[in-house]
């Protein structure tokens, strides 16, 4: 109904729980009614506020964003069959041009997209924000003020003809193609970059690089075995010197590197996890270590602590580190004072540590030997150690080891490998961007239809399919199967209506009474059919929960609808079921719709008796208040 003026008599609304403020989406929807198309220059919106309103609340309401518009598109069998029976009908094309697909394409991760590469994407976002703000402005204020209030940069965009970015192409089709072009361009650029890196003796260097990688990973394996809580817990005594891994950020080359510093163990703790596991070796531990740190204190935030090397500037602090950050345990233990709270005590302890460090400077602080000291006895450990030894021998033999520029070359090769990995990942996302939403679902749905004999192997719709084409208001597969099982043939019209009511009733009643025996028998037949259909769907890899699907058919209003078809008054059937009047009326109206569709289905089968039966059923239920056009008579 068009209106010039919209009046809000209140700015609060009952939402079933309490009176709350109108949301911005609701406000936009309601006030958007104001102004008749082609008649009014502008619509008027009056807001009657009878209580104090915070400015922020008002702003949220009047200038907030509209509700998101998300596609709820889904693939139904009925739609698929109707598409398949036309020569032009191509379900894939339909899906590709759907709004759902458009939104899915837009939601692709745009992390790797530089703005310079993708004007279309930027343009859409830009355009939608402009359109949105324009709309909002015209809703809340007269339009002259609206354009004046827009940020100056965006104002030219309101006249699309002058703006080069907005005109070019419809985004729905252009975007995926553009994305694809963008990705492939990026891949080409990266490949070019990769190929431009030329290294002497690349083959042998690569060999060496691979060895290095293997060596690293083996070392890590060994460390993981040795520093498993099972072995190392007894050695985490207070006072033991440990070397810690920390990452330092090199400003010159802007890469972070793993480095090693030393610290003193103070204590260790088990991390309390929610998983019920009593064995100590399976829990996680943190170790409290005294070491030199830089404490950065930013206003308002928690202070952050960063480990630095012993020789660098910083204050001594006790921090807790995870076990995985400990590089090795040394044999050395030093005496630590009881009270570490005073700053000087900690400083002194660290001085002792530096002293130890400088004394052992020649060949490093000796570590605990895994086999002799820590009694590590596991086959995988020995195997790994043997392999490391073998690798070390290989390193020595490797001719490339003695080349002068080995470190730089390795670094270059590393970069090259990284580039290759990046190209691979982009190619992967390129593939996923071309992938169609619902692709798997479409496949499995078609499989179901073939399995049930609705379509042939070359996608030609069969007799059953033609029947299912007619049914769109109820579960088309179950209803078609039920129809073909001949169940409607032997039962009376009232029973037909009662049975069909299970298809349109979805609400769950707690104390639903069981219907009488003959209706219950029909209902169990329906459940059986539904179970069979769901099992076929499950076999065809449609993600479906058989039991919940079967239980979604509710027998709750069977009695009421049966009585209605028998000619009872509405107040009489209301006594038979404990549901809301509105729900019941809605269900009966939907029932009429289903009956009309079934009439068409029976007609396409050529089964005239059944057609008459369904028509008669329509006549029986279509009466009185349930089908009154309006209650204001």
């Amino acid at each position: 109904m068009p209106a010039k003026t919209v009046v809000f008599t209140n700015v609060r609304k009952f939402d079933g729980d309490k009176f709350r403020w109108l949301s911005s989406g609701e406000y936009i929807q309601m006030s958007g009614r104001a102004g008749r198309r082609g008649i009014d220059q502008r619509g008027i919106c009056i807001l009657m506020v009878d209580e104090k309103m915070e400015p922020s609340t008002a702003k949220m309401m009047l200038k907030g964003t509209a509700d998101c518009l998300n596609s709820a598109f889904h693939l139904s069998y009925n739609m698929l069959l109707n598409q398949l029976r036309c020569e032009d009908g191509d379900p894939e094309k339909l899906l590709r041009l759907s709004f759902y697909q458009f939104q899915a394409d837009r939601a692709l991760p745009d992390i790797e997209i530089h703005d310079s590469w993708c004007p279309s994407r930027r343009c859409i976002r830009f355009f939608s924000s402009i359109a949105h703000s324009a709309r909002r402005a015209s809703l809340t204020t007269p339009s002259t003020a609206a354009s004046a209030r827009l940020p100056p940069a965006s104002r030219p965009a309101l006249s699309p003809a002058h703006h080069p970015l907005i005109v070019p192409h419809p985004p729905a089709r252009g975007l995926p193609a553009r994305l694809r072009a963008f990705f492939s361009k990026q891949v080409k650029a990266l490949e070019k970059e990769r190929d431009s890196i030329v290294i002497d003796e690349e083959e042998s260097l690569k060999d060496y690089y691979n060895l290095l990688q293997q060596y690293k990973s083996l070392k890590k394996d060994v460390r993981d075995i040795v520093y498993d809580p099972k072995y190392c817990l007894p050695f985490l005594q207070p006072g033991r010197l440990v070397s810690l891994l920390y990452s330092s950020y090199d400003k010159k080359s802007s890469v972070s590197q793993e480095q090693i510093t030393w610290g003193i163990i103070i204590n260790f703790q088990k991390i309390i996890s929610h998983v019920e596991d009593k064995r100590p070796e399976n829990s996680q531990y943190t170790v409290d270590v005294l070491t030199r740190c830089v404490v950065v204190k930013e206003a308002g935030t928690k202070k952050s602590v960063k480990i630095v090397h012993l020789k660098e500037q910083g204050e001594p602090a006790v921090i807790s580190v995870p076990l995985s950050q400990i590089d090795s345990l040394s044999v050395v233990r030093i005496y630590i004072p009881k009270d570490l709270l005073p700053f000087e005590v900690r400083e002194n302890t660290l001085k002792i540590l530096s002293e130890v460090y400088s004394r052992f400077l020649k060949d490093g602080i000796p570590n605990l030997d895994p086999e002799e000291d820590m009694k590590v006895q596991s086959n995988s450990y020995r195997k790994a150690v043997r392999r490391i030894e073998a690798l070390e021998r290989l390193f020595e033999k490797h001719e490339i080891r003695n080349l002068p520029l080995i470190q730089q070359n390795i670094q270059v090769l590393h970069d090259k490998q990284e580039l290759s990995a990046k190209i691979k990942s982009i190619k992967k996302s390129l593939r996923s961007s071309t992938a169609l939403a619902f692709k798997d679902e479409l496949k499995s749905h078609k499989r179901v239809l073939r399995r049930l004999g609705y379509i042939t192997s070359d996608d030609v719709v069969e007799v059953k399919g033609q029947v299912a084409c007619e049914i769109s208001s109820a579960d088309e597969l179950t209803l078609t199967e039920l129809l073909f099982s001949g169940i409607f043939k032997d039962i009376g019209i009232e029973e037909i209506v009662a049975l069909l009511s299970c298809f349109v009733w979805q609400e769950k009643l707690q104390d639903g009474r069981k219907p009488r025996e003959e209706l219950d028998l029909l209902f169990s037949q329906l459940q059986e059919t539904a179970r069979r259909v769901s099992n076929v769907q499950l076999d065809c890899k449609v993600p479906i929960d058989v039991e919940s699907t079967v239980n979604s058919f509710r027998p709750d209003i069977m009695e009421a609808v049966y009585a209605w078809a028998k000619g009872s008054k509405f107040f009489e059937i209301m006594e038979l079921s404990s549901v809301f009047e509105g729900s019941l009326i809605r269900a009966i109206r939907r029932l009429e719709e289903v009956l009309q569709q079934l009439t068409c289905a029976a007609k396409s089968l050529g089964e005239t008796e059944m057609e008459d039966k369904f028509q008669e059923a329509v006549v029986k239920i279509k009466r009185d208040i349930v089908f009154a056009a309006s209650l204001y008579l």
Partner: protein
Amino acid sequence: MKELLISLNQTQKVRLQAALQHLAELASQVSSSNLAVTVADTIPVNNEDGILKGHGTTEFDGQVVATLCGIVERVNKLVYVRTLRARYKPEVGDIIVGRVIEIAPKRWRLEINFSQDAVLMLQSMNLPDGIQRRRTAVDELNMRSIFEENDVVCAEVRGFQHDGSLHLQARSQKYGKLERGQLLIIPAYLVKRRKQHFHHLEQYGLDLILGCNGFVWIGEHAEPIDSEVLEDRDKIPKDKQRDTPLEVRRNICRISNSVRLLSALGFALSVEAIVDTAEASKSSNVDIKDMLGAEFYVQTAEREVQRRASLLRKKRFV
């Protein structure tokens, strides 16, 4: 089998007999029990309850009786008769070829071999200018400039109205008037429903439309007109005087003769079978006019026997 108007000599008669015999054997191997019925035959249903009586059946004295000649088909509890030589029975989405027989207010009536004439409404077809708009009285007066009586038109079945009349639609560039070609009328059951009924035979420069109603169109290939090319439409009428090249005309005749031949033999028409037959006639140097002669007729039957036998063998191996 349709009465043949070809005079066969003795050896050809024997060969044809043998081929047809063979085909009958192969058919009986493929489908186990296809019950053929004539009008008033009782269809056995073994006293099952809840039998749905579909097309071509009725109940008489408590028994299911056929009202049409054809083959009994069953889908779950549904029993119906699939007719062979009856009129065409349309289904939504079918591609049909028809001939305009009358121009009525806002509609054309088309003969499509259905029990009544099909209706193509002015509003359910794309106007030649390609613009989507309301149809005015002027459009109504100009209907004859789109289709005249006796034009051959291709369209899609849209659905049945409540009064049982059949409505068509032609909402795409590929539907519409068909020109420069031949229309063949064959029994509708020979055209099986497929995903594709429009075929562009590139090697011949032809369009082949196998209408589900048994009307087959073979004509010179016409490029579908894009909306972008519409501005150049003024040039097209001049083009109309252009004659179809002789080579294309020959191809049209060759293809239509193979359609005639296959339908006379009662073989299902598929684009592959039609092209195969045409190619075989070419490779064995059979003139177009001789394609309908006795010798090629028998040869085609024999080739079909071989094809079906090899298909059957393949199926067994799988």
